[in-house]
């Protein structure tokens, strides 16, 4: 525990900021405009001078924030990270730290910690030598190095492993060493490129907790890249969802899940049902949508929706209830039972709507989980506030089938 205090004390001002954040005092809001630590201003990247891999990335990050770049592979999120680390040049736009552009700063002068996907530990050096490397490069005296190394080994709970070689460690232990090495020279910004991708599920969850703990204790800013949404949702202050080189939405995890900005985000984050329909009219924040064979329903209207146009209505499987249910509801439609799949903690029901589209319902595995025979007709119920109508883009995943 004393180790933690030492390390944290050196980072004093950062720690205070984090404590403030944890008490809920500072709402992380990019519109506040104050105290911007890291800023991407219309950053574009092209490898071949023809097509853009990153098409204008903007974000303002506050000191101590945990930002995750989430997206399918090839969406440009790793390229953003590599430009920030300095391993890729910026085609146009500026990346600035504390208002100073770092576009022309060499990677080894940026003082940014980085955790690589495959750990990138030096196999010919012991764990202690790996941790000491950034300190030696910075000309720290040997005695101070030793002290700092043992502090950080304790911090990642590897106190007795200093003399081992990376080859003698397990995957989780290597990951801890990689983390410690990225933190030991006390950078204010740490980048992580899918750091948990190579670990099994149990270890990954444990390391997620570990990273969150270190982040809160030491107060550094994190930019984290992953394609695992559960990881992103559980660790981040804000998540930028990437697709096709563009940020689809950048928001806090709950907002991303509850209020997706467009159909891609609704589809990509969590599981979702999409029901095709036609916008009858728009009344303030709500859209009245005609669903073929089911009548009309009211849904929250997403941006870009026009009266008379085609749309898809999204509703999450866990927000759907099967009649009879005690939950409040605004909608009640009939659907044909197709299958019931036992998953363990919950049960998945598949129903077919009048237009032959399948719809999934997730029910907690308790006594109220109903039984159906094939071809039975059930009634699905949900709230208006739990469904959103998005404009139909024609090529949306999960909607075409």
């Amino acid at each position, binding site marked *: 525990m004393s180790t933690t205090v030492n390390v944290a004390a050196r980072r004093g001002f950062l720690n205070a900021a984090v404590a403030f954040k944890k008490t809920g005092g500072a709402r992380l809001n990019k519109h506040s405009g104050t105290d911007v630590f890291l800023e991407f201003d219309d950053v574009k990247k092209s490898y071949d001078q023809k097509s853009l891999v990153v098409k204008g990335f903007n974000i303002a990050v506050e000191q101590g924030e945990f930002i995750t770049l989430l997206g399918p592979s090839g969406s440009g999120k790793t390229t953003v990270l590599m430009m920030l680390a300095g391993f890729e040049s910026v085609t146009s736009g500026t990346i600035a730290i504390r208002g100073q552009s770092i576009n022309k700063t060499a990677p080894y002068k940026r003082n940014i910690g980085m955790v690589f996907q495959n750990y990138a530990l030096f196999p*010919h050096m012991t764990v202690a030598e790996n941790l000491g*490397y950034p300190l030696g*490069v910075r000309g720290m005296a040997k005695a101070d190095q030793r002290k700092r190394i043992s502090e950080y080994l304790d911090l990642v709970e590897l106190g007795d492993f200093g003399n081992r070689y990376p080859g003698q460690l397990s995957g989780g232990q290597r990951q801890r060493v990689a983390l410690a090495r990225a933190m030991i020279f006390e950078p204010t910004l740490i980048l992580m490129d899918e750091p948990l991708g190579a670990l099994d599920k149990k270890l990954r969850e444990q390391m997620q907790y570990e990273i969150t703990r270190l982040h809160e204790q030491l107060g550094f800013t994190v930019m984290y890249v992953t394609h695992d949404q559960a990881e992103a949702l559980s660790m981040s202050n804000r998540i930028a969802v990437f697709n096709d080189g563009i940020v689809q939405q950048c928001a806090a995890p709950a907002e991303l899940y509850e209020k997706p900005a467009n159909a891609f985000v609704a589809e990509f984050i969590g599981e979702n049902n999409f029901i095709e329909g036609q916008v009858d009219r728009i009344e303030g924040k709500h859209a009245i949508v005609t669903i073929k064979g089911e009548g009309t329903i009211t849904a929250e209207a997403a941006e870009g929706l026009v009266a008379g146009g085609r749309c898809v209505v999204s509703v999450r499987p866990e927000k759907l209830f099967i009649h009879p249910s005690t939950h409040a509801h605004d909608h009640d439609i009939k659907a044909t039972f197709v299958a019931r799949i036992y998953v363990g903690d919950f049960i998945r029901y598949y129903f077919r709507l009048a237009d032959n589209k399948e719809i999934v319902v997730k029910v907690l595995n308790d006594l109220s989980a109903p039984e159906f025979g094939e071809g039975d007709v059930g009634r699905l119920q949900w709230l208006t506030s739990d469904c959103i109508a998005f404009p139909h883009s024609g090529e949306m995943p999960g909607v075409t089938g």
Partner: protein
Amino acid sequence: MRGFPEYFTIWHIAGHYALRGIAYLVLAFLIVPILVIIPLSLNAEPFFTFTKGMLALDPDAYSLRWYQAILTDQKWTLAIWNSFVIGIAAAILATVLGTIAAVGLASPWMPFKRVITALLLSPMIVPLIIIAAGMFFFYTTFGLVGTYPGLIIAHAALGVPFVIITVTATLTGFDQTLFSAGLSLGASPVKAFWDIVIPLIRPGVISGGLFAFVTSFDEVVLVLFLAGPEQRTIPRQMFSGLREQINPTILAVATLLVILSVALLVTLEFLRRRSERLRGSM
């Protein structure tokens, strides 16, 4: 002894032993000419044959006089000195240049990779006599014929392909993110290369250097063309020794060279295993 599978017929077994016998014969055919010079070099008489005394294992029929002759004959000591100086200098030059070339060729942004590789490896393929003749005319212009630098540069050119091949082989297993990690930790590219890349490709660098040394050490064609009397190397001295004064001195030198080669081979094998261990552990 390991038993044969039950389905083996007598012919299978006969074939098994026949294959074994032939393999041993081939091995003997390759090794015996080399091994036979070792006892012959200990001959007390100035002949290239086994004397009656030697066959009777008479201690008086054996002697180290030819080894002594090497060490006292100024021609031989100069040749040994020359071989080591030129060999080591050429090996160092070839190792440095070859390693840099291999690292450059391993970069994904290297243009004309195939053409440059082919050019650099050409000394291994082009007949030596052609290289020697070309170098002779070229070096004359710069006054390099009959000088140590001339011979060292020429031998380094022959050694570079070996270094490129061995270093490239170790680099293919090298994880480039390690270098990036070094940069992200604050090391300049040169420092990161020295601290991280070099230690990890060291086995390839050293074995390349050893190959370059051996190449220079037993090279005679370039020496014939480019060396003056002052730069005579061991192979060159053996060559003239064969024509001028046939005695077992040459066999004694040959024996020493065999021992040296075995030592180098053992070193190489040791390095290879060590690098495999390092690689395997990561």
